[in-house]
């Protein structure tokens, strides 16, 4: 015991006796060198031997934390060891508890944060420092309102956990109490280990006391839950205290840092905060869902629109009935559509439509008798879609027309494998027989195809091909007879192609045998065909021109000129109209007496034709060459 004014160790002047600790009297002293107040406190006897160890003394002196008092020194006076620590101006927590002061939650949270930080600091030392006696009287509240954890005289490294250390009954963890019980009953207390989680428990018990005003030991069996004690504190805080005070160490916070983390998360666990977050997430979720649906609709819709645009163009091409004037226009349209990059994906999906377009191109080349290209496009058609036996049929026919009979037969075999109809098979076989020069077999097969088929297209095609066989044989009469029969059989849709073929058959016969007896009959028949075509919405250039030529053959120059003048109105840029007019004018003048002939009109038409004539790809028109020769003759003979 020291007297007031006594100088200890030539450094500390004892000012006053300020209290009694578990180990003895606590003195307020004045540090003569530092010129500040300090606390001098006796260390419990059972630690004396240990604090003399320099290493542990250095550890305690090296601790620097805002919420821990600074340990300045250890003083040995006789057999007693005293610790010199910072003087903290304020009261300890037990002072407020005894006065039953009610603290706001934010104040308690602040102290808990500070104490957790202090514990985290102590526990992070090497070796970890276990306080082991956290209780209200060891927590000072400074004049600034901060918490400060004091009383380190029993807080040495974790090895101390093997010993029975100082603790307070009301705040000690179950393992500390058990260890103590073993110690006093002579049991193996060293087997019970005290670690950082004991401090966590004590801190929880301290705060429990602070919140409820009741210490844990008031309920020797088991402390009542905070919720049952109907405190006015938040469920998050109650949850943290409850978790810190779990009987089993593994159920508690495993470190002060973990507990501190939970304290910091209290805000995010607040009901209002969670409600706000939930409503935000709900709205974001709904909006994301709507956005995804919208994006999906846009993408699918864009695809649909492209497909619809494609189908519209496709239908426009497919539904166009009459391209006999210029198949190149149709070919170009199909190729443009097939090569349009916008529709690459659509074409990849709609293979049938792609095949139809390729088939149409192939058919155009077929009609133009360009069988090489026709075969090439039929191959592409089949590569896109093999479901339609008609593709195989026409492919085989094109091969036969090209003279590649073996390939035609092989394709026919594939078509038969795909269950192609018997009528179609006969049609192909007829073409193959025709290509082989076996006309009789060809005609027989055509007849079979016509008799078996209900397909108007196939029937009309068989008739046309059959007529061509007869025409090849020079039997124009039979060809015309077959086509005339066809006009009575086929439907209105296929009639124009029959009429066109009949007109052409007659015209070729007339051109071949202009002085034959039956020429006038053929002319009449052909004119009738072209009239029907023109009146039946097939007023094409070739139909007009063929009809004009037929009238010229019939020596009806007036009607011929009338038709050509009509064509001049319809096709003002086509040189062939003027060429034909010049030739007609030349014929008309040749029928007049030489004295009455005037070739000025012929010259005028010729000049008009030359103006519009533009031979493409070096291909010149034979009729134009003939006209030029004749005009040259007129010059030579002095008519012009």
């Amino acid at each position: 015991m020291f007297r007031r004014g006594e100088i200890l160790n030539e450094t500390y002047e004892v000012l006053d006796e300020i209290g009694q600790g578990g180990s003895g009297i606590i003195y307020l002293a004045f540090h003569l060198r530092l010129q500040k107040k300090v606390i001098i406190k006796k260390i419990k006897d059972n630690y004396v031997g240990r604090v003399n160890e320099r290493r542990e003394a250095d550890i305690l002196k090296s601790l620097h934390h805002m919420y821990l008092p600074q340990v300045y020194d250890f003083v040995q006076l006789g057999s007693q060891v005293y610790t010199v620590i910072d003087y903290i101006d304020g009261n300890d927590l037990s002072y407020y508890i005894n006065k039953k002061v009610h603290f706001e939650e934010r104040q308690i949270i602040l102290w808990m944060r500070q104490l957790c930080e202090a514990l985290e600091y102590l526990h992070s030392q090497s070796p970890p420092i276990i306080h082991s006696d956290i209780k209200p009287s060891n927590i000072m509240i400074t004049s600034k309102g901060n918490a400060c954890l004091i009383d380190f005289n029993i807080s040495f490294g974790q090895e101390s956990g093997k010993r029975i250390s100082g603790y307070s009954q009301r705040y000690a963890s179950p393992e500390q109490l058990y260890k103590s019980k073993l110690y006093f009953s002579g049991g193996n207390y060293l087997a019970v280990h005290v670690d950082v989680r004991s401090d966590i428990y004590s801190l929880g018990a301290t705060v429990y006391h602070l919140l409820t005003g009741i210490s844990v030991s008031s309920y020797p069996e088991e402390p009542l839950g905070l919720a049952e004690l109907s405190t006015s504190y938040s469920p998050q805080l109650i949850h943290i205290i409850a978790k810190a005070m779990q009987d089993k160490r593994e159920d508690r916070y495993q470190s002060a840092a973990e507990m501190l983390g939970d304290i910091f998360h209290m805000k995010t666990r607040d009901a209002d905060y969670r409600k706000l977050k939930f409503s935000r997430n709900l709205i974001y979720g709904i909006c994301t869902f709507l956005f995804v649906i919208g994006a999906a609709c846009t993408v699918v819709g864009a695809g649909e629109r492209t497909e619809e645009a494609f189908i519209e163009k496709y239908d426009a091409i497919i539904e166009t009935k009459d391209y006999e004037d210029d198949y190149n226009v149709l070919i170009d349209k199909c190729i443009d559509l097939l090569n349009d990059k916008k529709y690459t994906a659509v074409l990849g999906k709609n293979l049938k439509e792609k095949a139809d377009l390729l088939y149409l191109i192939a058919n155009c080349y077929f009609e133009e008798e360009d069988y090489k290209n026709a075969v090439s496009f039929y191959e592409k058609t089949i590569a896109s879609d093999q479901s339609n036996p008609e593709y195989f049929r026409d492919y085989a026919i094109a091969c036969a027309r090209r003279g590649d009979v073996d390939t035609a037969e092989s394709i026919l075999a594939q078509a038969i494998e795909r269950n192609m109809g018997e009528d179609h098979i006969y049609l192909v076989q007829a073409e193959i027989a025709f290509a082989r020069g076996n006309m009789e077999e060809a005609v027989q097969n055509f007849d079979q195809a016509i008799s078996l088929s209900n397909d108007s297209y196939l029937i009309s095609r068989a008739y046309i091909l059959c007529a061509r066989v007869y025409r090849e044989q020079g039997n124009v009469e039979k060809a015309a007879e077959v086509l005339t029969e066809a006009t009575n059989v086929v439907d209105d849709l296929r009639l124009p192609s029959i009429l066109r073929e009949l007109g052409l058959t007659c015209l070729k016969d007339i051109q071949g045998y202009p002085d034959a007896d039956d020429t006038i009959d053929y002319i009449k028949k052909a004119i009738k065909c072209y009239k029907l075509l023109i009146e039946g919405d097939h007023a094409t250039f070739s139909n007009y021109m063929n009809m004009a030529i037929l009238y010229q053959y019939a020596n009806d120059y007036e009607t011929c000129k009338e038709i050509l003048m009509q064509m001049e109105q319809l096709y003002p840029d086509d040189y062939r109209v003027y060429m034909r007019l010049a030739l007609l004018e030349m014929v008309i003048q040749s029928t007049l007496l030489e004295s009455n002939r005037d070739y000025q009109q012929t010259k005028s038409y010729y000049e008009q034709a030359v103006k519009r004539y533009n031979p493409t790809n070096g291909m010149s028109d034979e009729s134009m060459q003939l006209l030029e020769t004749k005009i040259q003759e007129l010059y030579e003979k002095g008519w012009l």
Partner: protein
Amino acid sequence: MTFGDILFFSGIILMVLSMVIVLVSMGIYNHRKKVLKQKLYEKYGF
């Protein structure tokens, strides 16, 4: 108006609508969050 047009334009309307809702709700949320932050600070002290 084709099916594709309906799908495409309704998709765009849905996307725009959802973005408008997000923007408006973000504004409301930020305001409410500010108020709540103050309330929570008073309650928890941080």
